[in-house]
């Protein structure tokens, strides 16, 4: 375990939207190393439902031909930061499904840096944020493709839903590519719940909070599709949604 020494400032791009008062309380952030050995398959869940500020930094290496399925649910902390650095070796596969749900003046952030170090690795990131009140939800996601890492297939799907117009969503997908034969796709959208859909549900008798909850539940569940414990993650998210709405 190594610890970074000095507290970052707002000039530090990876911390630009952080809650610095809260960050000072949890600094320094321990680096958690995860290695998935060649040919192995692993899955991990990071679930942060407590109210206290939390900041984590995962440093992951997925070796040749190995697979990692990582899911993150941050729903509760006043400040929650999950940073994930991933290095992918030849033919490695990384899937990240992350949801962050916030209300009040909570600040949640997910910061990823996925590096395709060698050929034919694949990565997929699905990030869903549902933000109410005056909360802030941030996703900073960088995909780097190293020289020679041909056959890379990297995808990011980033969506944030503002439950209230007073909430803030920041999203910054970044691609840095030094190889020739690369497939990299990213989609990013910040929006509100579909008004037509809400009216359709209400016209059948659902109260406005019920209609919102159903639609948000489906939205957030996209981050957990196919997870080993999909149901438990979705239930935990639903519980938080019910208290937010």
């Amino acid at each position, binding site marked *: 375990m190594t610890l970074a020494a000095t507290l970052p400032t707002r000039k530090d791009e990876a911390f630009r939207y952080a809650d610095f008062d809260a960050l000072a309380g949890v600094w320094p952030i321990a680096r958690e190393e995860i290695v998935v050995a060649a040919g192995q398959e692993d899955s991990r869940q990071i679930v942060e439902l407590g109210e206290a500020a939390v900041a984590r930094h995962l440093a992951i290496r997925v070796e040749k031909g190995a697979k990692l399925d990582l899911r993150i649910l941050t729903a509760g902390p006043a400040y929650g930061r999950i940073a994930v650095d991933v290095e992918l070796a030849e033919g490695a596969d990384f899937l990240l499904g992350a949801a962050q749900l916030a209300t009040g003046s909570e600040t949640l952030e997910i910061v990823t840096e996925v590096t395709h170090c060698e050929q034919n690795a694949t990565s997929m990131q699905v990030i869903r944020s549902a933000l109410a009140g005056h909360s802030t939800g941030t996703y900073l996601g960088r995909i780097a493709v190293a020289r020679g890492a041909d056959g890379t297939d990297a995808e990011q799907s980033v969506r944030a839903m503002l439950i209230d117009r007073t909430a803030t969503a920041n999203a910054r997908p970044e691609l840095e590519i030094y190889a020739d034969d690369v497939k990299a796709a990213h989609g990013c959208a910040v929006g509100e719940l579909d008004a037509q*859909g809400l*009216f*359709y549900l209400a*016209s059948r*008798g659902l109260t406005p909070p019920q209609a919102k909850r*159903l*639609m948000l539940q489906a939205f957030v569940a996209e981050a957990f599709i196919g997870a080993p414990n999909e149901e438990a993650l979705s239930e935990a998210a639903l519980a938080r949604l019910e208290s937010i709405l």
Partner: protein
Amino acid sequence: MLKIDNLQATVADKPILKGLSLEINPGEIHAIMGPNGAGKSTLGYTLGGRPGYEVTGGSVTFDGQDLFELEPHERAAAGLFLGFQYPVEIPGVSFVQFLREAANAQRKGRGEEPLSGGEFLKLAKEKAGLLRLDMDMLKRPVNVGFSGGEKKRAEMVQMGILDPKLAILDETDSGLDIDALRVCGEGINAIMRAPDKAVLLITHYQRLLDYVKPDFVHVLANGRIVKSGGPELAHQLEAEGYEAVAA
């Protein structure tokens, strides 16, 4: 049951309904026909309470209650059903989950006991059978990937499950092939033709009225009802056109 008196409504500040009056009693089926842009869909949405459809004058009572005092979900609980011309797709939310919650929300609003999972599925199966819609379709996300005809049949299944007093059906016949038209028509009769229920059919064409025989036919033009009559009026419209009849 429904009393519309001199209703005026705007959409994006544009007047669409300009003094529409209509009374519907229990046991009656009314058809509203009219050319494009007459205000037919606006009438349906205004009665359903869709945001953006602003009532600027007149009144509507439903069972003696001021309809505009009620939120859309309260109108549903009071027994109003709006069949959509373009049913909305809602990814990730299954029909079964949504309809069970909707049915139970309405029952709660009326002070009734909720349906258990088993009771609900039995009811859903029965109504899906009536509309010849595969029950598996109802396990899929709401309207996602449904054909036009399947969406309309699914609307009728929802109506069957929710069992409203008054159904306002906005162009239920559009997008239906001949067989689906008959199935939907028979479904409407089976679900809604009862002494204590009523239907307001909004349509362009006479064809649905071959299956769902209206007691009254009204012609809507330029935001008002310009002519009312019996079922023969629909045939006259089909033969002579709106312009000739409404003039």
